[in-house]
């Protein structure tokens, strides 16, 4: 309505871009982790079958989500044959129960944390877009805590693990279909150094 009277304020438009750029810098450390060696599909189970698109070749290791892992150990988390390479747990609709196919991976992360008491893991809970946004934030947190309890049972100290939930706000895949939804109902493992 009344578009024609909107003032053109070019200087302020530039300010918007600068603010956005500043946030980009602070945001790139964490969050979305498109990692080599992760299961490409929830149904693919805990072991990745050669879908690591060459990321496991030494120098090209994608360290997103592994910043808190000592450099000499990072290959463990990108080797598709190592259960530590599973760094996302996928869930059924409205469920926070961890499917049994992730048991070995959970155990491996618990043991790694037990053996490296200075390493810190952040679990990021997520949901698909169905249902209300704040309820989904709470559901994602329940999922993250469910994974945390399982990892603690596998030997980690609870103080090594923090949780956050983004609900439906950070989908791994955009789209309104069952496949996208199944990839978005997840908990991501982020080894942080902060």
């Amino acid at each position: 309505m009344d578009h024609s009277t909107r003032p053109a304020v070019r200087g302020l438009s530039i300010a918007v871009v600068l603010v956005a750029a500043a946030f980009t810098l602070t945001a790139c450390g964490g969050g979305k982790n498109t990692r080599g060696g992760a299961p490409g599909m929830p149904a693919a189970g805990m072991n990745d079958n050669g879908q690591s698109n060459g990321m496991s070749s030494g120098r090209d290791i994608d360290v997103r989500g592994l910043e808190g892992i000592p450099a000499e150990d990072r290959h463990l988390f990108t080797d598709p044959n190592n259960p530590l390479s599973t760094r996302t747990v996928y869930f059924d609709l409205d469920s926070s129960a961890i499917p049994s196919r992730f048991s070995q991976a959970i155990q491996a992360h618990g043991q790694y944390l037990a053996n490296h008491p200075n390493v810190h893991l952040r679990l990021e809970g997520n949901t698909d877009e169905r249902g209300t946004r704040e309820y989904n934030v709470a559901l994602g947190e329940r999922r993250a805590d469910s994974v945390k309890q399982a990892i603690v049972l596998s030997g980690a100290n609870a103080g090594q693990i923090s949780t956050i939930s983004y609900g439906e706000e950070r989908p791994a895949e955009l789209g309104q279909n069952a496949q996208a939804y199944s990839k978005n109902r997840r908990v991501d493992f982020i080894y942080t150094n902060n």
Partner: protein
Amino acid sequence: MTHKKLYLPFVRLALLVVAAVATLPAHAALQVDITQSSDSAIPIAIAPFASQGGKLPVDIAQIASQDLASTGLFKTFDRANMMGSPGTPDEVNYKNWQTQGVDNLVIGSAAPNGAGGYRITFYLLDAAQGQSVASYQINASANQLRQAGHTVANLIYQRFIGKKGYFLSKISYITVTGNSADNRTFRLVVSDYDGSHPATVYSSQDPVMSPAWSPNGKQLAYVAFNVYKGTSSVRVQDLSTGNARTIASGHGVNGAPAWSPDGSRIAFAKSQNGDTDVFVYNMASGQTRQLTHSGAIDTEPAWSPDGQHIAFTSDRGGQPQIYLMNTQGGDVQRLTYDGKSNQRADFSPDGKSLAFVQKSGNGFRIAVMDLSNNNVRVVSDGPLDDSPAFAPNGQAVIYAKQGGRNSLATVSVDGDAKSSLSQAGEVREPAWGPLGY
């Protein structure tokens, strides 16, 4: 012309100064489309206002006409078919309007008021009877002419609908731009009720959620995430200064803010050990108190307008449903039973109705419950509707449509009139501020 002159007392109004918003301009305004008009829409013609002392910088009649049309409750007469723009009833050729089928006619004029502003006089005429029904006078400074147009619409709306108009109110919403899940920008935007004059009050690469207006319209509470740190926070931002204070933050859930009607407290959701509960923050003391202890998800609080109750979403019974408790956390009762689940309540301003999201079949739709008899009426089409919020006069509900085209929509509470508010990119989570006058 032979028409009865009715010398009604003028209704005199001084426009309040509308608080400035400390902001950056937002990219684009929402576009309003009326998608369904009420069958009983009231026909009305608003003629261009006459001006003494040069052309007005703002087309007051056009603004008022657009306001009324946007509700779907009025059918406005096309200006192109109007003959003349009389400034006073004496100048009206009623026969001309009668032959056009116009029953309700608004005419007016603006003149310098001697103080740098304008005195706007307008009349509601019964063209069929050839008589003046009501007359009004508004004083506005030179930079308040848009508000004057909205005030004209408010007065006409109140005359016909019997409720205050919401055309001076503001809405807030979240926009999301960027094509990939990795690279998006979230903006918290405040605009006029119809999406015009948008201004960004907060923006981030990380998610921003759940805007909630303070009852006086001067502050917004909302949720901001810090993805680098893995934290969430509930912030309260002053719209005139841009200053923000954080009332809850950390790992886990800090979200779903809802103001008490007197503005002294904010109910919100916070998690401990994975379990989300409803808490209350006292703005004066800075103290936080826990209200629910269920071990299930308790979130999405909404304060009743009388300040005595808080509705909230809980899955303590399995599927999420809406419950009611007192403000101490006691006397919990379940409110919703229809459908598979019901979530995210918002009280109507008179406290007599509740709007929420109802899941049934495979879809999520907006439903309105009459709290006197718990009858539920579904008012939206789905399939992924979310975030209902009552207009400040209780006559419409704004909500978000997800799926394919993410836009906002409004529906009259009877479900008869519908409009959409859309723009390129995603628009979500509308919150409707107070009347503004």
